[in-house]
């Protein structure tokens, strides 16, 4: 055979494999409102940049007549490409081929590209759209999942790992996304659960739709499994693109700097920020007033909205923001918000992203449900994460910083490098009302008019302690600053911390409370 005819033969073979599950299955995929696996990859990576691996891989099933079937690419497409010019490793499960079910060779393709990403130190993007384990392949299918989980764990904190759920992701399959750094979901398309509605109905007799059980909104709002929620696949892909612009390729690099840009004038602190510490405001507007182009890219926007986390840039450098949100639940720390913040802090620390913490919270949320849900254990996560983080840590106390909440929110005592307070800050063991009630209990009770005395004592306490100067007098706060100077001071601090070195005792790893 000549080179030409061999090339033609290759072309024929490729065309066969590129058909995926065939026209009928593709039409079905489209009817479900979904893109095909290949379309997805091509939409995420730069034009002409995708290079596929393992197109000719054959499945390994021998039993149940599987040996008589061919499954193009064994139901998964993998390869390398670039996003904004930077290389990534990517794989996408192909639902049109045997329902994207995971067999031994399917898993081998995924672990191959994962190992590649780990060796080349580039981000890994996995697109999940699979019916689950390929039951015909038995334990080999489970082996495949296990290998993937192991590599997810090995790569954790070395390269950014992104999971995109664009179809069902059920049973054991959910644990690969759960082990990765960011999970993207799309409304009406993503479905994640350990046991589906059918099993729940047979075993428990409870009826629930797939969407209500494990749809995109459920994971974005209630479980916190998802980090980004989109209304369409294209919106999801632009979110991935934006996320990658904020984070480095791997843990030995810093995120790529951008041109510095001023915040938009529409966000002026004096207009946003209410004097009364009991009045709410949107902390995200304060963040927008501090960052380049007022561009704040929020993570887990819908989950535990009483704390706000996300990426932004200050003078071109990526920073991670953690901020209490007085707009929701008064900005308290609770089980979910502690968990949410702690994981984000650890991501930023692993990937050399400085942390800016904005503090305005009345403390941890009291209540039986919180205590029983383990607010001690979950609340401890945020203490651990901040203490452990060795990236530059800048804290700004805006208003309330009471009790355990003050300590938890990147205080000096957890080794924040820079702690600033606005003149409106109230740093105290508890709010003035509670404190006055305890300190002056005898005096209040003995008074002829207890309420009058109580109010007087509250005011007295407020004047004496509800300010930043007591903390400043002990050096717990480095400086009391004008709110309008905050951006300038954060930028300067980031610059000062550029060569920060932290020496820690030797250990294999810590044992965080999770």
């Amino acid at each position, binding site marked *: 055979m000549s080179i030409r005819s061999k090339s033609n033969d290759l072309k024929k073979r490729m065309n066969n494999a590129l058909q995926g599950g065939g026209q009928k299955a593709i039409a079905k995929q489209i009817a479900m409102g979904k893109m095909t696996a290949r379309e997805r990859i091509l939409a995420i990576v730069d034009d002409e940049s995708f290079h596929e691996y393992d197109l000719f891989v054959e499945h390994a099933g021998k039993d149940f007549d599987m040996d008589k079937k061919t499954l193009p690419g064994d139901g998964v497409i993998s390869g390398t490409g670039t996003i904004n010019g930077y290389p990534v490793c990517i794989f996408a499960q192909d639902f049109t081929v045997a329902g994207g079910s995971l067999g031994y060779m399917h898993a081998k393709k995924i672990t191959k590209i994962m190992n590649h990403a780990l060796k080349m130190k580039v981000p890994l993007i996995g697109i999940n759209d699979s019916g689950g384990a390929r039951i015909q392949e038995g334990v080999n299918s489970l082996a495949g999942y296990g290998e993937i989980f192991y590599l997810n764990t090995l790569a954790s904190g070395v390269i950014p790992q992104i999971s995109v759920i664009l179809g069902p992701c059920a049973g054991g399959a959910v644990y690969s996304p759960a082990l990765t750094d960011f999970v993207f979901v799309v409304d009406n398309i993503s479905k994640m659960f350990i046991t589906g509605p059918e099993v729940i109905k047979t075993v428990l007799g409870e009826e629930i739709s797939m969407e209500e059980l494990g749809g995109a909104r459920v994971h974005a709002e209630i479980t916190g499994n998802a980090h980004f929620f989109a209304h369409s696949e294209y919106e999801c892909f632009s979110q991935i693109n934006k996320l990658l612009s904020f984070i480095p390729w791997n843990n030995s690099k810093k995120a790529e700097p951008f041109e510095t840009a001023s915040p938009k004038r529409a966000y002026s602190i004096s207009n946003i920020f209410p004097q009364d510490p009991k009045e709410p405001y949107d902390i995200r507007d304060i963040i927008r007033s501090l960052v380049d182009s007022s561009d704040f890219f929020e993570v887990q926007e819908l989950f535990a909205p009483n704390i706000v986390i996300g990426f932004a840039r200050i003078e071109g450098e990526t920073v991670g923001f953690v901020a209490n949100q007085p707009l929701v639940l*008064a900005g308290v720390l609770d089980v979910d918000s502690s968990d949410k913040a702690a994981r984000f802090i650890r991501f930023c620390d692993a990937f050399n992203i400085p942390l800016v913490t904005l503090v305005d919270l009345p403390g941890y949320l009291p209540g039986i449900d919180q205590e029983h849900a383990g607010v001690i254990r979950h609340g401890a996560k945020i203490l651990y994460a901040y203490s452990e983080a060795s990236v530059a840590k800048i804290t700004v106390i805006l208003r309330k910083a009471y009790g355990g909440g003050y300590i938890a929110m990147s205080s000096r005592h957890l080794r924040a490098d820079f702690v600033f307070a606005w003149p409106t800050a109230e740093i105290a063991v508890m709010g003035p*009302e509670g404190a006055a009630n305890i300190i002056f209990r005898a005096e209040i009770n003995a008074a002829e008019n207890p309420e009058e005395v109580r109010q007087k004592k509250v005011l007295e306490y407020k004047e004496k302690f509800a300010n930043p100067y007591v903390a400043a007098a002990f050096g717990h706060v480095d400086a009391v600053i004008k709110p309008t100077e905050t951006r300038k001071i954060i930028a300067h601090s980031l610059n000062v911390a550029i060569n920060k070195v932290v020496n820690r005792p030797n250990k294999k790893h810590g044992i965080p409370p999770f």
Partner: protein
Amino acid sequence: MEKKEKKDKRKVPVVNYENFTIHTAIYKTLLTKKFKNRKAYEVTDPKLVISEIPGTVRQVFVKKGQKVEAGEIMLELEAMKMYNKILAPEKGVIKTVHVKMGDSIPKKFVMVEMK
């Protein structure tokens, strides 16, 4: 021509804040759906033997009025591919048995009441 009123884009939408008490201070804020839907704490009655898991009753060993010792097997509940033995939590007398062989019961179902 009628002059159109210029809309103020930055006009803050009216938000109905709720009062949220933490210790003795009342804050104006929004409450999440998850917070509003949280379940109230219920004290469990030690006299009720409640299913921890949904399943099918395989066997019933006790009947009304019977005396049982703590740790005595009262029922066998098939759930999660296991025959789970349901034991008497304490020494006592059976007041009512709410299940019979073959019953499919949900989680948190009162199977036996004791006196």
